[in-house]
């Protein structure tokens, strides 16, 4: 992987992290945590924020990539095993968002009956993205931020006239247990901290970088929370049925009769950022696979994308089943890889570094 800039990581957290949580996540959270969905989301963000903080601390102490750190501590074999495990994790964490995105594309971007063929070219793009280095990933974050900054606030503004924020009250309506469940069952939407762990050593730590990245993470979290609040304020009790939330919130604006559905223009812009975001876990999977196998990116890129395409075809009509499996059965695996393992790896590296 080539070099990333701290600025680009910040942009990633500000623009690309939130877009992954704008489709099915709000409805899934509303199902479990109802009007307290903000607490569930905040809990996840705090956990992931802690991982981000730990990784940035590690970046401050050592400028080495995770593979080198693992190699030094546990040997090459264990480093490869860890990378292999994370490759599997990134592969799995790419699947549900892909199916989400596929449904969003087929249901929202087409009025006539569309087929999987319309979505399939995404994998060509993803393959191309996987063959590019981290510098390309960073530059895409540079492009994504202005697109997100232009489109997201407009959609929120268009939705605001129909939002009744009283729907979020009372704050104690849902038991803490359900809020915690809401958090744990949505761990598969929180993979960004783990990405940062693998960007370690691929960016130069500069003065105040940890603050900047954490600030950017906070900004991204704020965008997600704002969206969730507006989403629940618009739909209230029927929120849990509103999949593809981002396409729904602004559709009632009265000016549409004279202007047409202008929100679609901003939705297309957000869809562009979503496409970039969907490529990231696939790119990370290829990166981990490359370090495990030790080969050029072409072959793992082709293999991973073909496999993802095959699974997308296989689960074409089984999104709900996959979602149930990922959120209710495999939540512990996702939580392990998203929060515990990155935190443990960072703590271990920091502790060993302090000891003589």
């Amino acid at each position, binding site marked *: 992987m080539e070099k990333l800039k701290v600025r680009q990581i910040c942009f990633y957290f500000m623009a690309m992290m939130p877009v992954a949580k704008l489709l099915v996540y709000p409805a899934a959270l509303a199902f479990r945590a109802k009007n307290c969905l903000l607490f569930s989301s905040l809990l996840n963000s705090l956990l992931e924020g802690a991982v981000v903080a730990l990784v940035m601390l590690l970046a401050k102490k050592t400028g080495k990539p995770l593979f080198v750190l693992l190699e030094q501590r546990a040997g090459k074999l264990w480093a490869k095993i860890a990378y292999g495990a994370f490759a599997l994790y990134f592969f799995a964490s790419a699947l549900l968002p892909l199916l989400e995105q596929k449904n969003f594309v087929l249901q929202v971007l087409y*009025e006539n009956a569309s087929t999987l063929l319309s979505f399939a070219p995404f994998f060509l793009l993803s393959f*191309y993205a996987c063959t590019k280095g981290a510098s390309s990933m*960073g530059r*895409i974050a*540079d*492009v994504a931020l202005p697109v997100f900054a232009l489109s997201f606030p407009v959609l929120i503004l268009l939705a605001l006239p129909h939002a009744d924020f009283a729907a979020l009250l009372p704050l104690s309506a849902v038991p803490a247990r359900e809020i915690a469940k809401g958090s744990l069952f949505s761990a598969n939407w929180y993979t960004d901290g783990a990405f940062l762990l693998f960007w370690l050593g691929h960016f130069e730590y500069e003065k105040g970088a940890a603050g900047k990245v954490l600030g950017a993470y906070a900004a991204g979290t704020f965008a997600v929370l704002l969206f969730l609040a507006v989403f629940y304020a618009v739909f209230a009790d029927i929120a849990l049925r509103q999949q593809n939330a981002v396409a729904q919130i602004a559709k009632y604006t009265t000016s549409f*009769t004279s202007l047409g559905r202008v929100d679609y223009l901003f939705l297309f812009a957000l869809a562009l950022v979503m496409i970039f975001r969907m490529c990231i876990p696939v790119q990370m999977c290829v990166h981990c696979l490359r370090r495990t196998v030790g080969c050029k990116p072409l072959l793992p890129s082709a293999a991973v994308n073909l496999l993802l395409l095959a699974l997308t075809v296989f689960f074409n009509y089984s999104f709900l089943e996959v979602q149930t499996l990922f959120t209710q059965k495999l939540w512990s695996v996702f939580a392990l890889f998203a929060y515990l393992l990155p935190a443990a790896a960072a703590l271990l590296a920091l502790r060993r570094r302090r000891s003589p």
Partner: protein
Amino acid sequence: MNALDRSCKENERRIKDILTSEDILVFRFQTADGKACAAIYADGITDKALLGEQVARPLSSQEAPATAEEAATALRAPECKQVTDPQKAAEEILAGNTAVLIDGIPAALIAGLKKMSTRAIMEPPGSVAVKGPREGFIEDVKTNMSLVRNRLRTPKLQFKMLTAGRQSRTAVAVGYLEGIADEKTVKSILGRIAAIDIDGIPDSSYVAKFLSRRPASLFRSAGTTEKPDVLAARMLEGRVAVLVDGSPIALTLPYLLVEDLQGAQDYFASPLRATLSRVLRFCGVLLSVLLPAFYVAAQLFKLQILPLSFLLTISGNVQGIPLSPGLELFFLLLVLEILVEASVRMPKYVALALSVIGALILGDTAVKAGLVSSSAIIIMAISGIAAYTVPDLVGTTSVLRIVFVVAAGSIGTFGVTLLIALLLYYLTAAGDYGVPLLAPFAPLVGRDLKDSLFKAPLGDLGKRPAVFHTKNETRLGKREK
């Protein structure tokens, strides 16, 4: 081949053995003490009057010089050098210089007597300026170099002369400002030009292909200009210039995509006006590439995006059109390309007739016959006109809009979005000489944004663009408040 020897006759024979063409002439004369002299030159590209005045007259009115140095002093030519290799002498003759041979001197004196009939320096038709300098480059590299030197009268302006093309032996001048241009870039450019192995270089675009890391790319990798003021301004920013003999188009490297959005007169207008112009040009490019695709995608897959009244008008228009919107626009864009191609190559007096046939008769009749809708023709026309807001990108935009229409016609809006994403991935990874093509946007270079889509006042452009890795960053001295 052996070096030249002391016999004038023998040297003449050796050179004539290399240059056998009938337009290579020999002018024989004698010095005052009767020693044989010969001037070998190429007919038509050598100034014969100067040959007589600066070479034959001084030599024939005095005794023969004993050494080449003495001979060089005796000649009145301001450009004079000596060569001992007959092959080198032949190359100089072909470049328009004259090889002077004197009995007893084992060398040829090369007198710079080149005389080419060149066109006058005039305003380039492709970059007309409403305000600002109007002179443009011509086909002679020496004249072009003088135009640049006239604007940059500093000893730091360096020109490295190279030759490219096995048969054409075209002169290529690489110009840069020492201490401002990145040395690595200069070295790399010189290396790539030296490595060119091709029979001929008819134009600078040939050299551009060799200077590019991706010669087959749809996006060019070298900037071009026909104006010395623009070239000088770019060199002051840290770019390197490449001038090719026989071409009025100078290349500038490294190239940024955003420089195509910048017009020369932006720097003479108010910053707000310049910013507005640049934003309009950018929107023009976007309209040109995306408007036909979105029209097709909206009609085929996403009708809601259009306002109801507009939708009704369009649906009234397209009723009974036998082609699908994608095919309809695809063929219209093809017709547009054919019209453009034909109008460029057609004599001026036929062009008016062509525009009447193309725009009025063909368009109007096609709509009346129900073959195409009037809304599709409007979309095509807007797209076609918008492309010319940035003439340097017309080739790229015309190909892209066809690809986008195909994507929109087959996959719809998601296809268009995917293609935009692919394009952005490609562009963010593209770049040459360590300078990303999409800078200063991706990667974001905050300082360079001041002169990108946005044009800051001249007083705020105190530093040279950071993206060119220039050593000397300061371009504006401290101002008194």
